[in-house]
C-alpha cells in the first residue's frame, strides 16, 4: 500500500542511524582503549616520561563520548518526530482539501444544473419555485462554507473584529441560544447555572459566539438520537470557571480525546459516512479559548455514550474590571 512505503522510509533511516550511532560509539571506545593500551606499551618499552603525554582516564573518555552521542541521538529523534507529525498533517490537509473541494463544488454544480434546466425548458411555476428554493439553499450552503474558511484564516492570523469587553457569560449563552433558536429547533438545549451567580469575563463577543456555535453544531450533528440534547453548565471550580457542553450524541473513544482538537482531524467511523465536516470545528474552539486565556477539555465514556466538552476560563470571583487585560489583537 502506498502509505506503507511512505512510513517505512523515515523509520528505516531512523533505525539505521541509531544503529550506526551505537556502533560508532562502541568502536570509538574500543579503539580508544586499544590505542591507549598500545601507547602504554610503547611508553614502557622506550622508557619515556609518561607525564609528557596527556593521559585521560578511560572512564572520562567514555562519559564524554556517550554524552555527545546521546545529544546526537536526541537530536535525530526530535527531527524524526517532527517529520512524522508533518507527514500526518500533510495527509490530513490533503483529505481536507478533497472533501472541502467536494463541499464547495456540489452546491455550485446544483445551481448550474438548475439554471441551465430553466434555460432549456419552460417549467410550470410550482416546479420552478421548488427548484429556486433548492438553489437558495445551495447559496446558503456555499456561504456557510466560505465563512467557515474565512473565519479560520482570520482566527489564525489573529485578525478579527470586536474588542474584548466584559460580559456576563451566562447571559451571552442565553442570548445566543434565543437568537439562534430556529437553527436548533429540532434539539433541546438547556442551560444550568447552579450557583445562580453572574460570571463577568472579558470576551470578544463574535469570537465567543463562534465558539458556542461550533460546540452546539457538533453536539447536534454527531448525534443519532431522536432529539439531540445539549446541557450547558456553568460550574465555578478552584481553577476557574468550567463551562461544559454535554450531549447525548455518538461520543468518542478515550484515545481520541486530545486528537479531535487537531487541525483537520475527523474521527473515522467505518459504519457512518463522513459527515462532510471540515475537521476544523474543535480546532477553532481551542484556538478561540486560548485567545481568551482559557483551555478546552473533551471527555466521553465511549462510543455511543455522549460527550462533554468543557471550556475552562481563569475567572476569579472578585476581579475588578480594570485588572483584566485584553490580549493583543490587530484590529
Amino acid at each position: 500500500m502506498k502509505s506503507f512505503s511512505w512510513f517505512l522510509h523515515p523509520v528505516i533511516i531512523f533505525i539505521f542511524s541509531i544503529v550506526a550511532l551505537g556502533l560508532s560509539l562502541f568502536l570509538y571506545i574500543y579503539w580508544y582503549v586499544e590505542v591507549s593500551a598500545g601507547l602504554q606499551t610503547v611508553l614502557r618499552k622506550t622508557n619515556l616520561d609518561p607525564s609528557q603525554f596527556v593521559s585521560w582516564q578511560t572512564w572520562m573518555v567514555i562519559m564524554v563520548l556517550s554524552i555527545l552521542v546521546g545529544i546526537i541521538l536526541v537530536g535525530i529523534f526530535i527531527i524524526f518526530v517532527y517529520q512524522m507529525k508533518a507527514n500526518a498533517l500533510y495527509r490530513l490537509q490533503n483529505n481536507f482539501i478533497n472533501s472541502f473541494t467536494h463541499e464547495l463544488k456540489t452546491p455550485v454544480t446544483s445551481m448550474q444544473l438548475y439554471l441551465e434546466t430553466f434555460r432549456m425548458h419552460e417549467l410550470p411555476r410550482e416546479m420552478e419555485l421548488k427548484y429556486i428554493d433548492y438553489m437558495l439553499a445551495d447559496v446558503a450552503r456555499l456561504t456557510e462554507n466560505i465563512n467557515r474558511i474565512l473565519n479560520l484564516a482570520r482566527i489564525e492570523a489573529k485578525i478579527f473584529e470586536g474588542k474584548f469587553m466584559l460580559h456576563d457569560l451566562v447571559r451571552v449563552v442565553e442570548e445566543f441560544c434565543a437568537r439562534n433558536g430556529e437553527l436548533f429547533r429540532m434539539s433541546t438545549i438547556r442551560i444550568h447555572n447552579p450557583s445562580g451567580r453572574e460570571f463577568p469575563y472579558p470576551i470578544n463577543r463574535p469570537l465567543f459566539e463562534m465558539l458556542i456555535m461550533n460546540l452546539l453544531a457538533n453536539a447536534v450533528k454527531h448525534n443519532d438520537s431522536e432529539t439531540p440534547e445539549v446541557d450547558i453548565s456553568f460550574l465555578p471550580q478552584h481553577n476557574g470557571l468550567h463551562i461544559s457542553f454535554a450531549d447525548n450524541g455518538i461520543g468518542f473513544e478515550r484515545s481520541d480525546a486530545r486528537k479531535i482538537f487537531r487541525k483537520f482531524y475527523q474521527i473515522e467511523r467505518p459504519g457512518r459516512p463522513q459527515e462532510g465536516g471540515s475537521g476544523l470545528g474543535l480546532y477553532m474552539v481551542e484556538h478561540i479559548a486560548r485567545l481568551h486565556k482559557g483551555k478546552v477539555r473533551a471527555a466521553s465514556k465511549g462510543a455511543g455514550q455522549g460527550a462533554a466538552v468543557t471550556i475552562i476560563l481563569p475567572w476569579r470571583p472578585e476581579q475588578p474590571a480594570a485588572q483584566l487585560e485584553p490580549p493583543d489583537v490587530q484590529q
Partner: protein
Amino acid sequence: MEAADTIKILVVEDDAHIAEGLHLNLTLQNYDVQIAANGIDGLRKWKDWRPHLIVLDLMLPGMDGLRVLQNIRLEDERLPILILSARGEAADKIKGFGYGVDDYLAKPFNLEEFLLRVKRLLSRAVWQPGQGERSPGDRESVWSVYVFGNNRIDFTTASAFCRAGEIQLTEQEIKLLKLFISNRGKPLSRRKLLEIGWGYSRDTTSRTVDNFMVRFRKYFEDDPQKPVYFKSRRAVGYVFEHE
C-alpha cells in the same frame, strides 16, 4: 434502435439536489430514471432493475464510486457507465478509465454536454448484441482463457480444467477469479474482496471470503495445505501469483 421511453438510466448520486436535477432533465428527455443515494443501493438497483446506462458519482457515502464501478465491471463490461465527479484532475480521470468507465465528466458540468454524452453512449451500446444481459456464452469479452500452472480457466464457458478435473464455475467464483487475476501479485484485503467481489451485502462476512479461498485452493492447488497460487498474507489478505 429501441424506443426512447424504454431506456432506463440509473443515477447514483448522494447530493439530493443534483440527483433530482438529473432525474428531472433525463425524464424530460424521455428516459426512465431511478436514483440511488449510495453505492450499496446503487448496486442493488443495478442488479434488480437492469438499467441501460449508469451515471455514477464518485464521492459516495460508505462504498466509494470506484468500488461500485469495479463491482459492476466484474460482471458486465459492456454496460455504459458515465462518471460525474467533483474530482476532475487528470489523475482521477486516468484512474476511472483504468477501471473501465466509458465517460468522465467533472463537476460542475454543462447540462447540454452531459445530455449529449449520455445520448451517444446509449446509441453506441445498441450496436452491440446482448447489451447488459448476463449470458456468458455470447458475450465478446477480453476474458477468454487463462492458464496458470496446470490449471486452465475458460471464461467463455465458465469452466475450468484443474486438479479436480473439469469443473463448472459459479458466477461468484468467476467474479472472484477475474478480480484476483486483474490484481495479480497485489494483495487484496478481505474488505476489498467483499466490497468488489460481493458488493458488500449485509449477509456476507469475511468467513465467506475464507470459504471461497479454501474452495479455490482445493480446485487449483497441487497441495491445498501449501498454497502456491492463492496465498494468504497475514493481516493483509490474499494474493494471487504465479510465474
